[in-house]
C-alpha cells in the first residue's frame, strides 16, 4: 500500500476540482492506501487537510505518490512538484487562457498566464502519468510536451450521483415552477463562460419564441470580476430582459438540485471548458442540453444534446424552442443523457478509468 499525497491550490467541497480530489481520496483510501490532502486554502468537512508546503515531507521517496491537480497558476505547488522525488500523477483540469481576463482582472490574468507557463514545464517534466479530464485537455498536454504513451483521459469524479439523494430546496422549487419556461446555466460568472453570448441567444428565444421564459444563471460571482458581472447585468437591462435573466450567485447543493428540477433545458454558450461538470449533472438530472461546441463541450455532451459548431443565437433559440415544445425529443435526449451519465460519468465508471489509466502507467493502485 502506498503513501499518496493529493495536492491542489484550493480545496472546496462544492467545486469541480474539489469533487475530483475528494473522489480520488475516497477511492484510494477504500483501496487501503495512506492518503493525505494538501492545499493552501481549503473548506471541506470530514477529511483532514494539511498546509500545502508540508507535502514536501510526503514526497521524498520513490515509494510515495504525489497527485498534483493543475487548474491554475500556483508557484508553491509548482515548486513542490519540481522538488518531489516520488512518483507523480498530474491531473490536468485545464487552465483558462489568460486573454479572457484581459482588462477585467489582472489578478486572474496573471494566475492564468502562470498556469499556462507551468503547464509547459509540467508537461515536459516526464511525470509518471498524466490524467486529462477530457480529450481536449489531453491534446493540450501532448502539444505541451507530455508523452502520449503516459497520457490518458479520465473524467473528473463529481457530485452528480449524490444529487439524487439531496432533498431539493422547496422554496426555490416553488418560486420557479410558476409556469414559465426555465433555461438553466450552471457555472461561476467568469468571462470564459460566454455569458454575453448566452444572454444574446436567450434574448432571441425570448423575443422570437417565448417571452414567458427566464434564464437562470447559477454560479458564484467573483469580487475581482465585478466589472464583468456588472456588464452582464447591463446587457440584460439593455435588452429589456431585466427580471428574465436571474443571477442566483453561489447556491447550496439543495438549491442547485431545485434549479435542475425546475428547469426545462440546460443551455451553455461557454467559450472555454476543459470538461464542464454541470453538463454531467444535467445528464444525471435528465435535462436536455443545448450549447456551442467550444473546447471540450461537444465531447462531454456527445449524442445527448444539441451542440452547434458555430456561435449562432438563432440556432440556439430554435433548438431551445424545439426541445421545449417537443416532449418526445426532449425525453429521448434526457434518456440518452442519463444512459451516458451512468455508462461514462458515474463515479464507478470513473474509478474504473482511473485505475485502468494508472495501471497502464505501471502504478498499482
Amino acid at each position, binding site marked *: 500500500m502506498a503513501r499518496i499525497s493529493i495536492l491542489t491550490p484550493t480545496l472546496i467541497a462544492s467545486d469541480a476540482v474539489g469533487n475530483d480530489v475528494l473522489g480520488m481520496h475516497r477511492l484510494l483510501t477504500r483501496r487501503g492506501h495512506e492518503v493525505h490532502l494538501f492545499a493552501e486554502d481549503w473548506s471541506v468537512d470530514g477529511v483532514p487537510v494539511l498546509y500545502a508546503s508540508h507535502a514536501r515531507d510526503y514526497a521524498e521517496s520513490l515509494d510515495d505518490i504525489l497527485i498534483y491537480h493543475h487548474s491554475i497558476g500556483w508557484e508553491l505547488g509548482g515548486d513542490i512538484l519540481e522538488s518531489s522525488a516520488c512518483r507523480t500523477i498530474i491531473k490536468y483540469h485545464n487552465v483558462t487562457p489568460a486573454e479572457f481576463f484581459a482588462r477585467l482582472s489582472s489578478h486572474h490574468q496573471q494566475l492564468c498566464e502562470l498556469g499556462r507557463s507551468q503547464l509547459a514545464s509540467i508537461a515536459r517534466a516526464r511525470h509518471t502519468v498524466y490524467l486529462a479530464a*477530457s480529450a481536449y485537455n489531453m491534446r493540450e498536454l501532448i502539444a505541451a510536451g507530455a508523452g502520449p504513451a503516459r497520457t490518458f483521459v479520465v473524467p473528473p469524479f463529481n457530485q452528480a450521483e449524490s444529487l439524487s439523494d439531496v432533498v431539493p430546496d422547496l422554496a426555490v422549487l416553488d418560486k420557479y415552477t410558476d409556469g414559465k419556461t426555465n433555461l438553466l446555466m450552471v457555472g461561476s460568472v467568469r468571462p470564459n463562460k460566454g455569458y454575453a*453570448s448566452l444572454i444574446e441567444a436567450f434574448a432571441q428565444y425570448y423575443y422570437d419564441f417565448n417571452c414567458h421564459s427566464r434564464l437562470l444563471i447559477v454560479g458564484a460571482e467573483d469580487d475581482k470580476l465585478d466589472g464583468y458581472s456588472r456588464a452582464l447585468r447591463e446587457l440584460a437591462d*439593455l435588452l429589456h430582459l431585466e427580471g428574465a435573466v436571474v443571477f442566483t450567485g453561489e447556491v447550496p447543493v439543495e438549491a442547485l438540485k431545485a434549479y435542475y428540477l425546475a428547469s426545462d433545458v440546460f443551455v451553455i454558450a461557454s467559450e472555454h471548458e476543459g470538461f464542464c461538470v454541470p453538463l454531467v449533472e444535467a445528464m444525471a438530472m435528465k435535462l436536455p442540453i443545448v450549447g456551442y461546441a467550444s473546447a471540450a463541450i461537444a465531447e*462531454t455532451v456527445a449524442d445527448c444534446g*444539441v451542440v452547434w459548431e458555430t456561435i*449562432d443565437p438563432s440556432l440556439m433559440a430554435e433548438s431551445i424552442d*424545439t426541445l421545449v415544445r417537443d416532449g418526445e425529443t426532449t425525453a429521448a435526449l434526457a434518456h*440518452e443523457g442519463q444512459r451516458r451519465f451512468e455508462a461514462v460519468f458515474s463515479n464507478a465508471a470513473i474509478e474504473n478509468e482511473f485505475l485502468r489509466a494508472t495501471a497502464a502507467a505501471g502504478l498499482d493502485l
Partner: protein
Amino acid sequence: MITEIPRTETRTDEIDLAELMDRIRARAEERRANSLIDTAAILYRLLQTNDAGELTWPGADAQSEFPLQPEFVAKESYDTADFLGYNDRIFVLNAYRGILKREPDDAGYVQFLAALRSGRLNKIDILAKLRFSPEGRTQNVSISGLQGRARLRQLYRVPVLGYFAELAVGVLRLPSLLANHRKLEAHAAAQDERLAGYLGEAMARVDQKVSALREAQRQIAQLNQQQIKALFREQRELTEDQNRLKQQISNFQGQTDNQFAAHKLADEIQLEKRQELEEFVANQIVQKLQRTRAELVLQERRLSLLLEQRGTDTAASAPSEKQPADGVDPLMDLLYISLEDQFRGSRADIQDGLQVYLPILSASNIRDGVLDVGCGRGEWLEVLKDQGIAASGIDVNRLAVEQCARLQLDVRKADAISHLQTLSDGSLNCITAFHFVEHLPLQTLARFLDESLRVLRTGGVLILETPNPENFIVGGCNFYFDPTHRNPLPPLTMQCILESRGFARLETIELHPMIAEKIKGDDELTKRFNKYFYGPMDYAIVARKV
C-alpha cells in the same frame, strides 16, 4: 491507450440527432426568411464584436480605475524607494507582493494597515518586518538601503538617546525634507491636473455611453413596436383562420344534420314498415289461430250433440220420471222478479247504464239481428227499439216474458241454449246477455258460448255483463243478493273462458264504480282501498267472432 471520453453507443431507434439538428437548422433558416422581425439583426446592431473577437455592448467596458499611484512592478531586487512611493492599502499589498511574493493573508494585511494608519509603524518598519520575517528570509528579496534605515529606526526606540538621535537626524535632514516638501507640492499640482484630465475623459466616456444607450433604447423601442405590429397581424390572421374554421364546422354540421335527419327518416320508415309487416303477420297468425280454435269448438260441440243425441235415443227407450212441462217452478219466477226489482234498480237507471253499449253496435254497423239472452224486463230491448235496431229477447221467467210482451217487445220464453240450437250458423249480428252468465254452471256457460259463436256471423259481437268480484263488496256480499247466482266470474277468468271457446278481440269495460262512497285522499292506502272496495261493481266483456 485511453484517448478520449468514450461516446455512448448511439441508439438510432431512440433519437436521430443529425436529423433533429437538420430540422432545427431548416426551421431557423425558414424563420429568418419569413420572420417579420429580425431579432438577430437588432441584437447584432446592439452587440458588437470588438477587434479581439469579443462580444461588446454599450456599457460593457469596465470602467478603469483612475491610477492615483504608479503600477508596481514585481522583480527580484528593489530599492527601498520602490516601495515608499506607494501609500496606505496599496503600499501593504505591494510590500507583500514584492517581498513575500504572495497576496497578503487577511490577518497580516489588516494588522499592518491599522499600524500604518495609526502611525505606530511607518513604511520602513513594515518593510523591515516583512523582509526579516522567516518567510521573508526564505524569499530573500534584496532591498537596498532598507537595512540601514531599519537600524536607524531601531536606534530611535532607545529611551532618551533615541529622542536626541531622532532630533539630530531631523535637523540634519531638514534641507532634504524641505526639498521633499517642494516635490510633494509639485506632485500634488500634477495629480490635480491628471485628475482634471481624467474627469474630462470620464465625462466624454459617459457622454458616449449615454448616447450609445439612447441608441440602444431606440432600437429596442423599434423592436417592441415591430413585435406589437407582428402580434396584431398574427392575431388578425388567427381570428380570420378561426372564423373560416367556424364556418367550415358549421357547414359540416349542417351537412351532418341533414344526413342525420335523412337517416332518421329512413329508419322511421323502415321501422314503420317493419311494424306494419309484423302486425300484418301477427294478425294473420292470430286470425288463423282464432279460426282454428272456432273450428275446434264447433267440432267439439257437434261431437257433444251427437253424444247427447245418442243419450236421448237411449233414454227414449227407457221409462223416465215425470217432469214439469218447461222444468221451471212458476213460484220461482215470481221470486226472481222480486229480487230483480229489489236489487237491480229502477228501469230508467238500468236503461241509463245500458247506453254505454250503443256505440259498440254502431261501430260494428249493427242495425238488426240482435238477440238479448235473459232479457228480463226488456230494458235493453226497449233501448234498442228506440234506436230503431231490430232485436229479440228470450228469458226463462214467464212473468218477465209477459211483462215484455206488454211492452210489445219481441220476446219469447225459452232456455238460452235450446233457443240458440234452433238458430242457424251465422244468423245473428249480436248476442247480449246482461247479468246472465253468473247464473250458469261452467259446463252450461261453455255450451252457451259455443252456441253463440256458432250462430254469430263472422264479425258478430257478443256482449256479456256480469258483477265484478274484483270489488270486494260485490265479491264478498252483493253478488249473493241473488240466490240464483252460481259463481262470481272475475274479468280475467271470463276473458280466459271466452278465448278458450274461440272468441277474439276481447274488450273489457268497467262499469258502475261506487264513486259516492270513495274516501277522499291521494295516499297509497286510500287509493288501494277505494280500488278494492269502491271500484267498478260490474264489468262487461265485448267479444267478437273472427
